């Protein structure tokens, strides 16, 4: 009974409205795409190659990310050392790192003129080439290894310490008894999440793909629209992309991946197994792999800042404006959905996972084109699409917190007759400050660094910071690009920090 009372007193209609908006955005644009796909020229041999490449690189990227994450997570789970907490925090950084900035860092380390190539040169070996299949996989492992480590680490530390003690007293092997069952439960979900992320890869393939040989479906959509002006083919490819993402998202949903965003990573179980040297190797290797490119971004960026073109400041302002709009919309939508808590709202909250920015972008492009020059709406569309794509993440942060609030204060509020807006304002919002701040920080950083839909709508002026950086790299002004990269990195992290901090201030008691 209490449950139904609680749900009656909740504010329902904004959630329904938000869900309708999301469904319209995802399915409406898909419909616009599907209608257009009918007069397409069909898929050529190279399109099938792009589909094959997309799947193969995603499988290998996910397998490598998860495969390497297991020893790293195990090492982190059983070792206690100075800076461990900081390292685990830093493992969260690539998630909010602008893709194009990370690519610059990877080029500085693994490119033809990078550190590794120079080192190889000293011992007489030829330099590396980062373009093509292996470059795309390398970048994807860079982004997703930390995510996989954090998710698998969650699995490890969720094994209660008592069981390790029990295993010790029984002198039973830990691997087959405790660790393998946990990995069997956790790893497939992590694999699918990483696979899904790599499936929608755009900026990586744009920057590091070696032409037709390393083209993802997302990139092919962009090329069909912006290079060929082939609306039919773009639409057909968009449908393929949605199909691939939907299948993966459904699989991931069924396997129910663990929540990688939850806290509580500091509890270290006393362990006596495993070699210290081996664990040390894995932790050092992972830290070097992740931190070296970032250090290069900072190092090269500092010298490159003097080379930045004047257009960098308006671009920064535009990016901040887009990120603020996108963040506001994300919070409104996900708060409304979390309040509603119905089945339709739940569906709408995960729906964006099955789509991609290029697909929704293509749909909006086709719709806007009927009325106006779509290239004049780049910033609006970018803010809208970024907000849509951030909603599933924000929901995952907000929904559990909302459940807690209702669980703790629901009956009291009911007995006080606090309903609707009043209940939201006096009971729920003050207690959601922290997750709201975190979700807003995530949304802002993701939007700030986005280089996806903006390329589709890039017109005259209206450059965002990532787009400006990409164009500088295209003109091979690498020093200027490095400067802009550092600025972008600083802006993204600052946005995240301000929101996340804002959520914690006063709530720290």
């Amino acid at each position: 009974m209490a449950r139904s009372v609680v749900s009656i007193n909740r504010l329902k209609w904004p959630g329904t409205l938000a869900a309708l908006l999301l469904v319209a955005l995802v399915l409406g644009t898909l419909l616009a795409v599907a209608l257009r796909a009918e007069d397409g020229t069909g898929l050529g041999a190279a399109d099938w190659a792009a589909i094959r490449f997309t799947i193969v690189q995603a499988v290998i990227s996910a397998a490598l990310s998860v495969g390497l994450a297991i020893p790293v997570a195990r090492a982190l789970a059983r070792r206690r050392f100075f800076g461990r907490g900081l390292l685990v925090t830093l493992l969260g950084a690539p998630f909010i790192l602008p893709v194009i900035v990370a690519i610059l860092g990877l080029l500085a380390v693994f490119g033809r003129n990078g550190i590794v190539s120079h080192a190889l040169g000293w011992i007489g070996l030829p330099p590396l080439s980062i373009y093509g299949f292996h470059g795309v996989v390398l970048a994807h492992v860079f982004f997703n290894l930390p995510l996989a480590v954090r998710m698998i680490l969650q699995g490890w530390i969720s094994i209660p310490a008592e069981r390790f003690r029990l295993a010790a007293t029984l002198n039973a092997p830990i691997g087959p008894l405790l660790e393998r069952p946990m990995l069997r439960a956790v790893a497939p979900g992590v694999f699918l999440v990483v696979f899904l992320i790599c499936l929608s890869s755009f900026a990586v393939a744009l920057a590091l793909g070696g032409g037709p040989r390393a083209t993802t479906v997302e990139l092919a959509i962009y090329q069909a629209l912006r290079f060929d002006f082939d609306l039919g083919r773009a639409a057909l490819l968009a449908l393929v992309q949605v199909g691939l993402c939907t299948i993966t998202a459904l699989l991931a949903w069924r396997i129910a991946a663990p929540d990688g965003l939850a806290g509580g990573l500091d509890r270290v179980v006393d362990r006596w197994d495993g070699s210290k040297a081996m664990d040390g190797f894995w932790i050092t290797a992972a830290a070097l792999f992740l931190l070296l490119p970032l250090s290069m971004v900072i190092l090269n960026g500092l010298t490159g800042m003097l080379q930045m073109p004047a257009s960098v400041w308006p671009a920064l302002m535009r990016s901040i404006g887009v990120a603020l709009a996108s963040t506001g919309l994300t919070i409104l939508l996900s708060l409304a959905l979390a309040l509603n808590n119905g089945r339709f709202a739940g569906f709408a909250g995960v729906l964006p996972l099955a789509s991609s920015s290029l697909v929704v972008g293509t749909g909006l492009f086709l719709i806007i084109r009927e009325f106006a020059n779509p290239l004049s709406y780049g910033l609006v569309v970018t803010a809208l699409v970024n907000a849509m794509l951030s909603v599933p993440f924000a929901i995952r942060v907000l929904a559990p917190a909302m459940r807690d609030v209702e669980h703790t204060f629901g009956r009291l509020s009911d007995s006080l007759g606090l309903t609707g807006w009043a209940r939201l304002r006096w009971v729920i919002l003050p207690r959601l400050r922290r997750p709201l701040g975190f979700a807003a920080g995530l949304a802002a950083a993701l939007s700030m660094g986005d280089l996806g839909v903006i390329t589709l709508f890039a017109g005259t002026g209206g450059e965002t910071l990532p787009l400006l950086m990409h164009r500088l790299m295209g003109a091979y002004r690498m020093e200027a690009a490095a400067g802009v990269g550092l600025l972008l990195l600083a802006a993204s992290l600052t946005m995240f920090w301000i929101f996340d901090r804002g959520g914690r201030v006063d709530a720290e008691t």
Partner: protein
Amino acid sequence: MKHILTSVAGLALMAGAAHAEPPVLTVYTYDSFVSDWGPGPAIEAAFEAECACDLQFVGAGDGAALLARVQLEGDNTDADVVLGIDTNLTAAARETGLFAPHGVTADLDLPIEWSDAEFLPYDWGYFAFVSTEGVEAPASLTELAVSDLKIVIQDPRSSTPGLGLVHWVQTAHPDDSQAIWEALADNVVTVTSGWSEAYGLFLEGEADAVLSYTTSPAYHLIAEEDSGKVAWAFDEGHYMQVEVAGKIAQTDQSELADQFMAFMVSEAFQSVIPTTNWMYPAVTPADGLPDGFETLVQPATALLLSPEDAAATRADAIEEWRAALSQ
């Protein structure tokens, strides 16, 4: 929070209130044309000195992406003039119905006859692979294809040199173009969307050679006093490029656009071309070509498809290229 929002809004307002007194002529072009070292800045200054207007160049990727951009924007385009497509694209551009006759009669110094009513040439050149002295030069496309040499090329869907190479292979080897592409595939380090990026990669040492022009070594010779860059001369002959501009029919600056088209073949514009765009000017300047141009490779055979033939074969040739390189 409020402070941030107000200051963002304030800045946006300030940007919107830019003074817009002189009429603005918007010219869409390729990125390297507007770069600091390209012809854009000099031409902008020269034209603004005589037009009492604000000439704005808009870089829209590389040459072929320009056409797609104008097609995407259709009747809503902001462009008044489109500068930087070539004869391989003029037929497709004409078909959009977006372009108006240029109405300019000029004495052009082109190696071919010119009678296009809509598109007016401003420079021309021969495509060639540019490499460093000392690298063993192949004597033909076929020799390059069987060699181990590493090259950077451009995407024919976004870049006019990339498209030029596709037509080059097609005209030089009409019967076995597919085989040539399949043999070339393993020589290609990467495909870039634009010329600048490819040339930058080459200069950084990412490849032995880059698809560019026979005139590119002149840049290194004249601007950098470096005679170490060479263009490979190929037995099959070299495909030619004639770069053109066209006036958008829907323009609200019709007179200014006409004035710009006429300016394009004048001495002020043409004399800048050889040492900024590093191409042969469409009208040879009074002082002739700069010193250093006489050292350039002169192809024995010039290859060029008519605009109609280029348009008719473009889609198939690109698909053949994509299929060969995606393997």
